[in-house]
């Protein structure tokens, strides 16, 4: 395994994708919305709107709290209604949104580097390079996964700062991240980044243009989210245990998809599609 070649491919793909506005524009906008605008809205809201409305909103929360596992319920003990609202919104409700990012980032970069390379007819010269199929594959996967994880982490950091700053006086100190966010960042996020790219590689062998791949991957993101949201808003709360289990499931799916995409990613079949 020649790591110098693998890094060269990853770096080249990143340089290229940087020039593709359609690819990186969402990578700026989405984190901005999730990490800055949404938490501000949800934290400032209960502090400025009439008490009656907050009360009504919090009625729902009361009902939810009764169904929570005891470990999670402890977080809400001895909190005022406004504080509960903020913890519930910023700590739980918005959490699944953050799962979009690793998925989206890695599938967008993957669409550009796997399909875009063929679309722009640069694939053939690359196939003539003295690298193995595996090195080519790894280089491209890293180009998608590393920035996806990095950008997600950066978004988490910004989010943590915004949430703590906006709710500092209300909560009387730093309270975020909650315990469940740690496995989300370090276990579930990488798993989703890998899910995004491995699904994209499979999609990319069946489509002709970057845009097609982009759209298909986007629908995949929506699908995964619908599944996750459905689970969460119904019965599950993202506690530490839940996140670890979901993460493990995603890694298992990853293993399968990676196996399939590696066996799909062969020079001989790529050259036939040039």
């Amino acid at each position, binding site marked *: 395994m020649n790591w110098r070649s693998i890094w060269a491919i990853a770096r080249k793909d990143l340089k290229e994708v940087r020039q593709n506005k359609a690819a990186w524009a969402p990578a700026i906008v989405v984190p901005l919305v999730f990490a800055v605008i949404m938490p501000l809205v949800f934290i400032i809201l209960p502090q400025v709107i009439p008490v009656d409305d907050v009360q009504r909103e919090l009625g729902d929360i009361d009902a939810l709290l009764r169904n929570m596992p005891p470990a999670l319920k402890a977080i809400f003990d001895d909190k005022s209604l406004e504080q509960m609202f903020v913890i519930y919104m910023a700590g739980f409700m918005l959490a699944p949104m953050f799962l979009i990012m690793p998925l989206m980032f890695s599938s967008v970069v993957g669409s550009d580097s796997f399909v875009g390379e063929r679309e722009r007819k640069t694939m053939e010269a690359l*196939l003539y390079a003295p690298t193995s199929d595996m090195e080519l594959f790894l280089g491209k996967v890293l180009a998608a996964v590393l920035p996806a994880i990095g950008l997600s982490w950066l978004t988490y950091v910004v989010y943590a700062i915004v949430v703590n700053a906006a709710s500092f006086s209300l909560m009387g100190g730093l309270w975020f991240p909650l315990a469940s966010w740690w496995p989300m960042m370090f276990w579930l996020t990488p798993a989703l980044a890998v899910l995004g790219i491995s699904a994209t590689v499979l999609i990319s062998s069946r489509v002709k243009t970057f845009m097609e791949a982009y759209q298909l991957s986007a629908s995949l993101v929506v699908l995964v989210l619908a599944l996750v949201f459905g689970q969460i808003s119904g019965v599950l709360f993202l506690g530490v245990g839940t996140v670890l289990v979901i993460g493990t499931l995603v890694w298992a799916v990853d293993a399968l998809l990676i196996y399939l995409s590696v066996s799909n990613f062969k020079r001989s079949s790529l050259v036939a599609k040039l």
Partner: protein
Amino acid sequence: MTEKIIQVENLQRTFGANRAVDGMTFQVEPGEVFGLLGPNGAGKTTTVRLLNGILPPSAGTMRVFDLDPAAQGELVRRQTGVLTETPSHYERLSARENLEFFGTLTGIAPADLPRRVDEMLSFFELAHRADDKVETFSKGMKQRLALARALIHQPPLLFLDEPTSGLDPEAAQQVNDLIANLGRRNGQTVILATHNLLDAQRLCDRVAILNKGRILALGSLKELARKLWPVTWVDVTLFNGASAESASASIQALRGVRQVSAEKESLAIQVEAEEIIPQVVSALAANQFPILKVKPRDYTLEDIYFALQAGEA
């Protein structure tokens, strides 16, 4: 062990029912410029892909540097450079970035890479545009960059697939001059896939003429011409007013002369071999016939090519 760079035997590659390469056998010597000639769909590009191990063959054997490209593709590709049919680059990157990328993949040491890249850029007259995005380049510049990319690791074996297609005559001439120099100066072996017969005639030591995946003929221009037309013709033109008719009588009986036809001051003489031509000339001179011009008929690759392709049809 063998000194042949390429050895191919009964090589085949099918795509469904389509036989893209249909039983080719040939060998390439070190330092040769070897042409693969044929019309569209003859199997030139497929052959290049097979020999570089990026496409597995359906049957037959091939050795490149005594390696099997199908099983040891990486090792083969380390020693080959390929100018692909469509010279596509990473258009959003600069010429320098493109070369650095491929230089790294071909294993040039990091310490040598900047120097190699600069050498290539200035050799191909791209130094002044080195840091511009390739999307701003003309077709000729892109072609030169593609050549630079194929040559950056100084491969002993070079594949050029249609190197002058789509270039204006001046750019094509430049590229051809370069190719002519490669073999002679650096001892590189060159496989030139083309349907430009003039280029092939000028550059190739030997050619394989292909059609529908099969080799119709193989050899140097001379060998092929001799095989197709075993006799030699020479045209002699006499000076103003001299009668070719009477001149023909004086040479008809010479040994090695097979046939003479005369018209006004021109003679068309068929001889057994080129050696006969000087004897014909001295016989004419001895008989005081004023000779203006003596021109042995050369066959061009074009004549050979069309004769073969016509025989095929």
